[in-house]
Structures are given as C-alpha cells and as structure tokens.
C-alpha cells in the first residue's frame, strides 16, 4: 500500500471522526414549553427509500405539508417536525427513536407495523404519543398500549365492514381473503373468520407470498372453494397483480380492497382489471368530493404540487398530523405541552371532524380506536367514486 493511500485513509478517518463529534455535540434536549407562543417538537419516522416507499413518501409529504400549512396559519403553538427515513428497517427505527428522544420531541408520527410494534414498549416508558399508518386492532387498547393512537378504522373493522357489505350483496357467499404474509396481512384474518361465521359466509384465508410474480395457484384454490368475493389486505402492487390474474383467468370474483390496496396506485397498475373493484377506504381518495380535501388541495396547488398526483396517502398523512396538532393545541391551552398532556387532550376532546374525508375520529381513555366506520368506494371510469355512506363495523 502506498503512503498516499494511507494518508488518504487517515484524512477520511479524521473527517468521519470530526463529523461524528460534531453530530454528538449537536443534540438539543429541550422540550415543549408552555403557552401559545411555544414551539412543540414532533418526531417523524418515515419510509422514504425502503420497501414501502411508494406509499410511504406521499404519506410523509402529507404530514410535512400539514405542518407547514399549520405553522403558516399560526393558529396554535408552532410545530417543529424533525423527520428521518428509516428505510423500512426496524433496527434503523430503533436508532432514530433514540435520536428523536434526544431531540426532545413530545410526540411521534411513525409509519408501518414493524416500527410501530418495535417501539411500543419504549414510547410507553417514555410517555410519547405515537400515531402511525398501522391500524392493527392490538394497538387500540390503552390498557396494553396507552400511548399508541390508531387513527383510522382498524384492519379488523375494515374486514368486518367488507364482509357486511358482501353479505348484503350475496347472502351466504364464499369469500377468499388474500393477504400479505406478515403481521400486517394476518391482522384482520381472525376477525374476518369470526364475522363470516356470524354472517354465515364462507371464509378462507390465502397468504400472498412476497416473492410471487402471480397468484394463479392461490386463485385456483379460491376457485375450488367457490369464492365469489376476494378481499385483499395487501399493498397496491401485489393487489393489482391479483386483480389482473383474476381478469386474465376470467374468474367470476369481485375484488374488495381494504385500506392499503384501495388507492390510486392500484387503479393505475391494475388498469382495466380494476374496474368494479370495491374499496373499504377510511380515507377519501382525491377523486371524490369532500370538503376536507379542499385544504390539502389548496396548499399543494400554492406550493406547485397537485393533490391528484399525490393521492389518497397524502390526505391520510395530512389528517393524521391534523389530529395530532389538534391534541397539541388543546394541550397547550391547558399549560405545558408534554406527551402526557397530549394524550389526555386527545382522549378528552370531542370527535375530530375531517370534513368528510373520513369518519369522525374519537379517542377515549378506554379506547384508542379512532374511527369506528368507513365509507365504501368503487372504481368507475378509471377512478375511485363514492359507493356508500359511512358504514359501521358493528
């Protein structure tokens, strides 16, 4: 090895060390103050470059967009959002959580099932309210997870609503429940089996392997079951492939999407095969009329963007942050903003109205399941249109 290479290595090591020391010294441990002129620090753990970045990015953009719009309006304490990309890697989420805690955040916006589950013990110990786009029913009980707030209709309730609708269309029908082979996918299966039994529907679960390029073998099994309805608990890309497979195989099966399958990406990817697909979607797509869509639409058009391009997940992020901001604002009205005071404010405030974008969001001290119902939408002329009014799970 030449001495030049050693000098270069030594110089690089020095720069790395200097950078680390700078980074070590730059942590600010201040927390939220009191009064309406205070600045409240909120952390964000998003997926901007990992496995779910296609939907994680607009969701994160929605949260960031809301904070900018909210701070510009000045109606309440200023929110300082510090967010990082966790690349859908649980170990990175654990590390980033430590950083956000050091930064003195009083609440956290997370993303998927992995990070939400992995951090639930820590956020409980540190008393930091945590909202994410993981709607597992297991996170809705304050006795187990007091600082997790499940903003939207849980996956289990989405499944119940889907099965109720199926029962109304065709009593006693056979239902094939296709799902991602993960906790996210498994989450509503138990509730699905129970509800189907109550409604006298046939119900069978089919795992969708992550590596599969088509789902014809699983569809053949569903065909043998006599399935007339296919409920999908998966993200848009594999769901669109499944819808295409159903169309190619000319199977007489109606697709019913739950939350993560029902979005604009699914319609784009599935093309003609998406026609007639029904979606149990807690958040309104950008293509329908809802008063609550005006605010993100105006903000985006002013900042050179477009809600039609950003889509449903932007709205989802926007209103998840709006809800947290409402909790912060109410907590600030009573004094110092802390994780505990935000939690109390969220539990005590009246149902939060999203202007028709979703069902009203209501938390109590005994339930952190924000929404009890969801509207249903249908794909018509290449875009989502309203199908039903608000349907309740029970």
């Amino acid at each position: 090895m030449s001495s030049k290479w050693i000098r270069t290595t030594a110089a690089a090591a020095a720069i790395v060390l200097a950078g680390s020391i700078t980074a070590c010294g730059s942590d600010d441990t201040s927390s939220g103050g009191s009064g309406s002129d205070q600045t409240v620090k909120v952390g964000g753990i998003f997926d901007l470059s990992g496995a779910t970045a296609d939907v994680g990015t607009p969701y994160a953009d929605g949260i960031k967009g809301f904070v900018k719009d909210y701070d510009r309006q000045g109606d309440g304490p200023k929110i300082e959002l510090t967010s990082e990309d966790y690349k859908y890697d649980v170990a990175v989420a654990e590390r980033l959580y430590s950083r956000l805690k050091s930064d003195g955040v009083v609440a956290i916006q997370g993303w998927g099932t992995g990070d939400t589950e992995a951090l639930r013990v820590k956020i409980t110990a540190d008393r930091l309210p945590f909202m994410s786009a993981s709607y597992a029913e297991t996170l809705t009980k304050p006795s187990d997870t007091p600082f997790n707030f499940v903003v939207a209709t849980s996956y289990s309730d989405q499944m119940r609503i889907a099965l109720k609708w199926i029962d109304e269309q065709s009593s006693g029908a056979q239902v094939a429940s296709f799902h991602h082979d993960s906790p996210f996918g498994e989450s509503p299966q138990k509730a699905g089996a129970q509800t189907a039994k109550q409604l006298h529907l046939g119900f069978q679960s089919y795992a969708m392997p992550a590596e599969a390029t088509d789902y014809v073998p699983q569809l053949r099994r569903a065909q043998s079951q006599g399935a007339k309805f296919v409920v999908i608990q998966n993200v848009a890309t594999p769901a669109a492939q499944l819808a295409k497979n159903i169309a190619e195989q000319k199977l007489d099966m109606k697709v019913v999407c739950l939350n993560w399958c029902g979005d604009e990406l699914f319609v784009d990817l599935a093309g003609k095969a998406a026609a007639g697909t029904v979606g149990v979607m807690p958040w309104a797509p950008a293509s329908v009329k809802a008063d609550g869509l005006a605010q993100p639409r105006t903000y985006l058009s002013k900042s050179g963007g477009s809600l039609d391009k950003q889509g449903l997940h932007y709205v989802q992020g926007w209103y998840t942050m709006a809800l947290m901001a409402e909790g912060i604002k109410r907590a600030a009205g009573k004094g110092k903003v802390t994780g505990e005071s935000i939690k109390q404010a969220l539990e005590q405030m009246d149902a939060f109205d999203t202007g028709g974008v979703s069902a009203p969001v209501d938390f109590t001290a005994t339930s952190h399941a924000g929404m009890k119902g969801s509207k249903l939408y249908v794909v018509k002329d290449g875009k989502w249109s309203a199908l039903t009014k608000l349907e309740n799970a029970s």
Partner: protein
Amino acid sequence: MAAATGIHHTTYGADLALRHTRAEHARLALMLVALVALPFLVSPYWLTIVNQIGIAVIGAIGLNILVGFTGQISLGQGGFLAVGAYTSGLLAARSGFPFPLDMAAAVLVTAVIGTLFGLPALRLKGLYLAIATLASQQIILWVVTHWDAVTGGTSALVVPPAVLLGWQINGDMSWYWVIAALATLATLAATNLMRTGMGRAFVAIRDHDVAAEVIGVDPFRYKMLAFFVASAFVGLAGALTARYNLIVTWERFTFDVSILYLAMIIVGGLGSISGAIYGAAFMIAVPAWIEDLSRNLSGLAFLQPDMPAIQQLIFGATIVLFLVFEPRGLARVWQRVQEYFRLWPFR
C-alpha cells in the same frame, strides 16, 4: 499479525501471550480507557448506536468463525438471531427465567439449532451451502410467525426488563456496560479459540477440506463444531437484542439482516476477529453518520427530497471503494496503517 522485529520468546507463556510489545500493551490500555470513557463522551443517540454495534459485534464474530475461518458460507444469520431472541424473550416473559439464565439457554438452543441446520454442510459447499442455509432462514422465520401457541405468531413479544442481582438494567447507559462486557468476552473467547487445535482445524477445512482430512482433521466433527460455536455467538447477540429492546418482532430478523451481517464481515475482513468488530461498526455507524451529515446540509434545500437516495448512494459507493482498494477489509487497512507507522518517520 506481523510480529515486531527483534521479539524473542524465551518461555511458553510469552509465546502464547496475545500481546508481545509495550506498544501493544499501551494500545490495549488505551482501548480499555476509551471503552470506559465512551458512554460519557457520546450523546444518548450515539450511545444507542454504540449498543447496537456491540450486539452486532458478537453476531458478526460468530458469523466470521463460520464463514471467514471455516469457509462455510451462511445466509441464515437472521434466522439464528431470531432463535436466540425468541428463546430468551419467551423464557423471560412466559417462564420468568431470571437474567442471565435466559440468555445462557438462548445460546445453547441457538447452538443446537444452528448445528442441525449445519448438517447439509457435510455434503454441500459454496453456493450450494448458501442456498441450504438460506432455507434455514426461511424455515425459522416461518416457524416463528406461524407457531402461535409458543411464539405468539406474528404478534410482538413484550419482554420484561432484565434484573441482575437486584440491579434493573434499563436504558442505554446500563445496557452499555453489559453489552461492552459481553462483546469483550466474545472477542477474547473467539481470539483464543482460533489459537487452539479446534480453531486451526477450522482454518484447515476452509483452506482445503480434503487435505485437512488427510492430515487427520475430522471434517464431520469440525464442521458441526463450527456451526455450534458460531451459532452460540449469534444466539447471544439475538438474546441481547430481545432483552435490550424489551420487545421481539419477527421483522427484526429478516433476510436483509443476514445480508447485512455478511456485508459486515466482508467489509471488516473475512477470517479476522478484529475485522468483525470494524465491519459491525462500519455498517451501523456510517449510515448514521451520513444521516448526520445530510442533516447538517440543510442549506442545500434542493437536495432534501432526494436525500434518502443520496444517503444510500454514498453508503453503497463507500463499500465498493473500500472493497476495490482493500479487498481484505478494514482489518487489513488497519494492519497496513500499523505497519506504516511502526517505521515512521524512517520510511
């Protein structure tokens, strides 16, 4: 490592010593001082990273014994970490096993399961063995996520805080001492193991298994032993992951983790204990450092939307450059730096 010129050993004890020169002893003392001072010098955030590195060091040493020293490639690291984590977590949460007995059990169980999954190594080599061990990763994760009655299936397993002789180990500072002590012990154990007959048998099998058999090394015994010992280290890392994070989720042990650990020992230096340490530190600290750097570049607002991609690009490019300029890893880079300064400034 190259011995310094003019060192003569006159006793067996001196010959067997890990360190021979005053400079080496001074460096050891410095290292110990640095280890003790480290948690007081870094921010809480960097202490979390240091703890993650400490756990990864133990796992990477285990993998390096198997891949770097014995030449048995393994893509099942994530699965074996899961075995350690779930064994420790379940024993602590469900059976009330006291700490550190749950960890000892996790080490043993992972070693046994690792040995079972190592059986194909008797017939398979290279890429074929890689695929066989990949199957172990898939099988273990499948069992973990589908064996509801024992593991709780896909639900997260909450683990109670560890208590050692009345001391509740909670928070990064407390865990630092436990992890640092265990990582040091693991390093010492592995370094000494490689100087024993067993360690040399591992290396003989790696270099030429037929020749090793001809000179009397039993491939069956030593390949199985390599899987047993390596998996024991990995089991300890898994158990620490569970106890440190207070929760076990299967998503912590995916195939990506297996690849990450392989990258650690390749970047650090295959067949080198210190390489496993450098590699673990590199693969965990550098992405965090790049994040810090990008945070400090807030002036370049136009780059912010693409920053996640840029971070990954820089990290990937750094690995490629390291491997191009020094394929034998960071351990070799450090060795060369030492050699250079040994004669400095008379070079």
